[in-house]
């Protein structure tokens, strides 16, 4: 027994060390930093609750939070719809099914910066492919990334495209779990294709939908690379995300204590939102 325990701790050791160095230590360090002022050069000084007080009254922070919510309100529903629709399509007997599955997964593993640059080109006002097509069908070009009204939605669409393959896999796995006899029973009982989706498929995929909502929300709150690469937070700060603000505080303005405060606040906000979402979905399920 003792030998087994020894082996167990030996085997868990590397992972525990990893966790300690890359998760526990940074979290603890961030919590400490909240109460410090530190420019990375001179020695940190104790700042009490200054950072927290500043954050509460920082309009830029709260507008970044609002921007992120705008992003989420487009990204999360769109992510569910696209992933579900693609999963349903790919779940059929389809020619080249594994090719399509791989094709949709590919953007997930491509670097976010690369995708951002690619889409910057697609969105470009004068030379972008999207506007080229719009003009072709007789519409006027849209300045996707430079119009304050369209910039954040454009980024949300792009992020949705990038991640859809990952969520498709989650939904495809869920679809496998719907017993064939249930599908046949509801068909015999008289359900149309839409009713089969409404009364069987969609409710059966509730666990997967909760997962997609949670993951895409957490992921969405960390929006950074896309505005950083594509818009720098503009136009009119409309794409300025919380993490971009955090990054700039840390590495542009050298305010490590304040950046850490933003990070901790973001973690709290994510926790609250995800918790609220679960409560809401739980209520919806009970209906």
């Amino acid at each position, binding site marked *: 027994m003792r030998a087994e325990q020894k082996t167990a701790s030996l085997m868990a050791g590397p992972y525990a060390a990893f966790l300690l160095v890359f998760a526990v230590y940074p979290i603890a360090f961030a919590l400490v930093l909240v109460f410090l002022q530190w420019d990375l050069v001179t020695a940190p000084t104790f700042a009490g609750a200054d950072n927290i007080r500043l954050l509460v009254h920082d309009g830029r922070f709260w507008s970044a939070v609002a921007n992120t919510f705008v992003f989420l309100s487009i990204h999360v529903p769109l992510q569910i719809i696209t992933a579900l629709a693609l999963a349903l399509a790919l779940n059929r007997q389809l020619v080249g099914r594994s090719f399509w599955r791989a094709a949709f997964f590919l953007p997930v593993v491509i670097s976010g910066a690369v995708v951002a640059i690619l889409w910057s080109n697609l969105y470009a006002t004068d030379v972008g492919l999207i506007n080229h097509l719009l003009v072709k069908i007789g519409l006027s070009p849209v300045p996707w990334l430079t119009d304050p009204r369209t910039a954040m939605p454009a980024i949300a669409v792009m992020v949705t495209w990038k991640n859809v393959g990952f969520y498709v896999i989650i939904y495809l796995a869920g679809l496998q779990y719907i017993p064939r*006899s249930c599908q046949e*029973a*509801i068909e*015999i*009982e008289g359900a149309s294709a839409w*009713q089969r989706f409404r009364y069987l498929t969609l409710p*059966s995929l509730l666990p997967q939908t909760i997962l997609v909502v949670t993951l895409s929300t957490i992921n969405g709150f960390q929006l950074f690379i896309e505005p950083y690469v594509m818009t720098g937070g503009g136009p009119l700060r409309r794409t300025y995300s919380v993490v971009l603000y955090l990054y700039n505080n840390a590495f542009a303005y050298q305010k490590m204590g304040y950046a850490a405060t933003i990070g901790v606040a973001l973690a709290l906000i994510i926790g609250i939102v995800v918790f609220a979402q679960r409560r809401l979905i739980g209520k919806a399920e009970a209906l």
Partner: protein
Amino acid sequence: MPSVTFEHVTKRFGDATVIEDFDLQVADGELLVLVGGSGSGKSTILRMLAGLETVTSGRIRIDDRDVTDLAPRDRDVAMVFQDYGLYPHMTVRDNLSLGLRLRKIPRHEIDRRVAWAAGMLGLEPLLDRKPKALSGGQRQRVAMGRAMVREPKVFLFDEPLSNLDAGLRAQMRIEIGSLQDRLKTTTVYVTHDQVEAMTLGDRIVVLADGRIQQIGRPIELYRTPVNRFVAGFIGTPAMNFIEGTLAADGGRMFFSAEAARLKMRAGTAESSEPITLGIRPEDLRMDFIPQQPTHGSADFDTLTGRVVLVERLGGTSHVHFQVGPHRLMASVASDSLPEVGHDITAHVPAARVHLFGGDGRAIGRTAEIV
């Protein structure tokens, strides 16, 4: 007018012909059982009737309506699946009522039918539970209730009891039988369990390799199987078989095999082909003292053998014995049983003997068996 008609129905999956030229008529209100071994095509036939599988050629009719090309929901059938196919996220009440809601049946009518089915099946206390909070037997009842509330033209059952334990299976078998008796809804019931087939079926269709072997009332299949397959399939324990030949001797036919010579009943036709003799374990009568050291008595209605195994089942027991190269089994009352290793004599009543020709077909079935 028959309620369900199959006309020359053939089903191929790719190159494999699974059902060939299948003809069947199910009478109105009848409970017809399709029975056969695994892969014999039972489910395929049922699924074609439900519309879950297309037919390759031939027609299927329900009443006088050709349903061959209709979608499942337009056929007015209800099906009970082996794994029940209950909707896991819905309560029992919603499971029962969904089909009616989809068909826009008025609310009060839905409530009436759900209450009626729940009452009949004893589901009232379970109406607000979800399937995962039910036992196997309760799920089975919900699946039946879901079929009942639809009040369809035809009930389809695909091995509905095979996921239940033996006791529950026997109980549900009786319930299904009495339900169908009361509802008088035409039913096609698929099973591989011949006891279910015998006890439930008004008529039984025995299938092998996608072809009908025999159709008949249970007792007909038991008494006059048309071929060796049916003889071996229907009846538990299964019929004993001995390979041999027929030969005339002094105006009577005798069946001869190694270590066995038996007089056949009068009127048995002569035959030169290899013959299989079949006798049911319950038709053998046993004497524990061998009458003669030779094979059988002078009347040639007995086999002499040595007991190799006794299975005590309670009221009856199965006595396995060896006659020359033939392993046979007799089903006898447990009052007095032979010991393993002892010699016994088994009486083979000529009237109970089944004979099958080289192609497996029953022969010499002229005299009626009492």
